[in-house]
């Protein structure tokens, strides 16, 4: 699975972005998006489109964890969302690998089809993403509490980045 994670402010400004690949089941943590060189641009575009869906559901459910709220069939991308109290959206685009690559290939036959690295919509994957989001939310609140963090500004703390990377490795 390849992941694109972005934190988006209430005014739709990206505050933090991270691209990574699965670390589960021997994954090497490297993203391999099937849309190749255009991935970065496409992922941003797909996630932005999904914000419209978030707007539709956010006043109907009080949950912060909104699960998979959108998908984009051409690249088999799924978008999960966690929304904070202040309407900051944590968006995670997840896309299963198109082809099994050399590093994961030898193991793929032994991996269950519902496992996190393979199946973007299984309950296991959903739970793993929820855990990831919950952990990032905690990191987010810690960022907020810093008097020098100004609301709506990009998160520049290298420790924050390092911890989000860690959460991705731990759960995804």
């Amino acid at each position: 699975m390849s992941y694109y994670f972005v934190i988006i402010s209430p005014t739709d400004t990206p505050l933090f972005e991270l691209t990574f690949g699965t670390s589960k089941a021997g994954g090497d943590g490297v993203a391999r998006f099937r849309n190749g060189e255009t991935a970065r641009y496409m992922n941003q575009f797909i996630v932005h489109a999904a914000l419209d869906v978030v707007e539709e559901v956010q006043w109907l459910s009080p949950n912060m964890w909104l699960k998979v709220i959108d998908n984009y069939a051409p690249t088999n991308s799924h978008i999960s969302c966690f929304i904070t109290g202040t309407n900051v959206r944590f968006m995670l685009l997840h896309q299963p690998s198109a082809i099994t690559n050399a590093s994961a290939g030898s193991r793929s036959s032994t991996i269950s089809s519902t496992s996190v690295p393979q199946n973007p919509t299984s309950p296991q994957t959903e739970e793993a993403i929820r855990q990831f989001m919950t952990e990032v939310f905690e990191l987010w609140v810690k960022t907020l509490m810093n008097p020098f963090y100004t609301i709506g500004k990009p998160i520049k703390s290298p420790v924050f980045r390092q911890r989000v990377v860690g959460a991705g490795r731990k759960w995804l």
Partner: protein
Amino acid sequence: MAGAPPGHTIPSYAASHAGSPSRHMSQYPSTTVTTTTTSSSALVSGTPAPTSTLSSTLRYPSTRKTIYDRNLNRSRNAELSRSSFAYLFMEMVSYAHRRVKGIQDFEKRLNEQGYPLGLKLLDLLLYRAGPGASSTSLTSSSSTSSSGGGAAHRPLRLLPLLTLLTTKLYPLLFSRPADSLEQSTTNPAEYMIIDNTPLTNQYISVPKEMNQLSVAAYIAGIIEGVCDGAGFECKASAHNTGTDVWPNRTVFLIRFEDHVLEREKELERQGVK
């Protein structure tokens, strides 16, 4: 301070694609895609660089303790002396006094100092109200009991929001709930939170010529920040309504914007709680 922060390096999938113009999402800092050659392979994956400092210059103690290592609930029940707050707040107010013209300006400034705190405290409140608040970082128990949870509920309607203010925000700040919550009888957009003994007013004697001033404007700013942050745009102001029994009694008047009330009606109709 000024200029593009070099630390804001966005890991990209394809470094060769760095210059791609992005019309639809011009807010994305497409020009800050990493161009560092030294560790670009690590940055691209975003993974095997645990100490990836990017271009940050921040130093940490040898214990490596950072704010991200600190349990968010650690100071939840910690106490300091009330006078430490009183003296500090007094300095804050007199500093503000030197930089403002008139009472309105004064209150506006105090309100503006509280406002960002409100925006920040809302997520702290929700974090602490969440079921896994104290355990998320401590245990990896994959309890699936609350598949819809992971955190508390966001307030969608006015009543949960106002209750959050009086029973969650107030105890967080003042270790007690607010004294009462009332709806205006004349204007459905107006609500009042009443505090008989606001902490901000207890130690500050306002000069006679400023007797209209309420330094509780700081608290009003916090309240306004929480409401705005939650999507309930409003103006909140503090008003002295002292009585013989409660000389510092203060009413926080919250006036919600029209579209908030319209949404409220719509959600009512749809049965959203």
